């Protein structure tokens, strides 16, 4: 099985976000960057499928700056075989140009399966994986929590409001991973050492400008300081009264 996993370098979820001097992006100073957490599920699933098949190849593909090489190496350390960086100095907020660059790279790669995280924890778009499937005219199941692949066919489960949708498709296909799909492994020291020697090809990505202009990036409005209504169960009537008569939400 030949599997591609598309990944993104994002700020760590613990990072405090500060707005940059340009007021349209974050201040990256002091921010630790990691492999997007949802992409970890995608990498893990690819490795499990390859292991189950007994042979195959897992290729990591990323659109990003030079620094994204480190992110690709993280996935290689988990066990993927090789990486491709589609280098772009800046990646905009419109998901379609990114999807086009990835689709062009993946198109003739002979992949049986292309995996993504369901979203990147920076822009939260939840778009690029599905768009790549559309551009390549491949079947796609997004935000998947369970995946079975057998005999050239796939069966995926995705959580919807009040239920679980079961989607069936034939390979090749695109699947985007949600939390719950698996437990991603940690790169072992040996994996980290081996990753340094694995092939990582760097190409220039041609990203078109897209149709989204960032007017500004701001910190969310601070919530107004609330108040402690009281201590213990005796404070409950005062809380209910405040919710009814002051906040008017009951």
């Amino acid at each position: 099985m030949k599997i591609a996993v598309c990944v993104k370098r994002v700020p760590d979820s613990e990072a405090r976000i500060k707005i940059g001097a340009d007021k349209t992006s974050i201040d990256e100073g002091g921010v630790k960057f990691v492999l997007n957490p949802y992409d970890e599920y995608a990498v893990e699933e690819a490795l499990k499928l390859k292991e189950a098949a007994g042979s195959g190849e897992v290729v990591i593909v990323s659109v990003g700056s030079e620094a994204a090489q480190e992110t690709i190496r993280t996935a290689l350390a988990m066990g993927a075989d090789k990486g491709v960086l589609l280098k772009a100095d800046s990646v905009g907020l419109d998901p379609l140009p990114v999807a086009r660059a990835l689709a062009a790279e993946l198109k003739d790669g002979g992949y049986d399966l292309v995996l993504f995280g369901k979203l990147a924890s920076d822009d939260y778009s939840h778009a690029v994986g599905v768009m790549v499937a559309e551009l390549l005219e491949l079947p796609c199941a997004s935000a998947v929590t369970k995946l079975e692949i057998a005999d050239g066919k796939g069966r995926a489960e995705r959580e919807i409001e009040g239920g679980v949708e079961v989607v069936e498709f034939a390979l090749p296909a695109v699947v985007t991973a949600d939390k719950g799909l698996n437990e991603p492994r940690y790169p072992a020291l040996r994996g980290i050492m081996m990753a340094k020697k694995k092939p990582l090809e760097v190409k220039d990505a041609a990203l078109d400008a897209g149709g989204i202009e960032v007017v500004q990036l701001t910190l969310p409005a601070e919530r107004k300081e609330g108040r402690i209504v009281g201590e213990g169960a005796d404070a409950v009537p005062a809380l209910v009264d405040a919710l009814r008569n002051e906040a008017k939400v009951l």
Partner: protein
Amino acid sequence: MANVIAVLEQRDGTLKRVSHEVLTAARTLADAMGGEVHALVIGPSGVSGDGLGDYGADKVFVAADDALALYQSDRYAATAAEIVQGGDYGVVILSATAMGKDLAPRLAARLGCSLATDVTAIQYDGGVVVTRPAYAGKAVYTLKLTGAPSVVSLRPNAVAPQEKAKAGSVEAASAASGPARSTTAEVKQPDSAALDVAEASVVVSGGRGLKEAEHFKLIEDLAAAVGGAVGASRAVVDAGWRSHAEQVGQTGKTVSPSLYFAVGISGAIQHLAGIRTAKVIVAINKDADAPIFKVADYGIVGDLFEIVPRLTEEIKKVKEG
């Protein structure tokens, strides 16, 4: 002038409540743009587009086909794309539900246009301007969408539905027959009465302070009393007490209910980011210094095992009285 088209969502042939939110946003936008609001309903035969005029739809397309009772991604996308391409539309708007999150990028790819997902506000200011949280709610983008059309998905609960009477004339539309690359075979454990945390207007979330999975009964009882959905912190989901579908915060769901209860949740930065757009937050925690009290509108410090049952009782009294 360009019109706005709202692609609506049905379950079991009945339109979802979020459809009125999407129509309201579409109406506001169309009024500013000087255009009409069209709605598209895709579903099984018998699905109705009646009554959408009350929420501002000038025209309603209904594409009915029994094979489209469940969300079939390829045919839904093909049907919507055909109708959008057949009209003069500046904006296509959907709700950012599980379906909308999948359908919106499909549409944008088919239309070759820009996409802004999970927006919390949309307006027209010589161009379409949206606000959308990013970095799990730790920052907010203001974006101008320069292409036409643009596809936008709207976060559930971000816009309050408003009635505005328009013609709402219903027109049958053909469902695209094109190839289906994938098939939604079934929806398991369907419980159409169950409220999803992302859509509910009241959410009651529990955290590690509950000490054991069994104690979530307290949370379920309070949620039932207020007519809300049950949510959970990452800690208890990772511990296997609750399903990921209920997780609120980064790597879970971002919610905007009118009322949010955080019970036994200290308030990690990832959780706080996910509830920032809630209108009223109530915190119940034994630790007066817990970060959750910094963002809560109302707090009670103390033993949740005493406070929550009392709260459930008091709320029941209020609701009954």
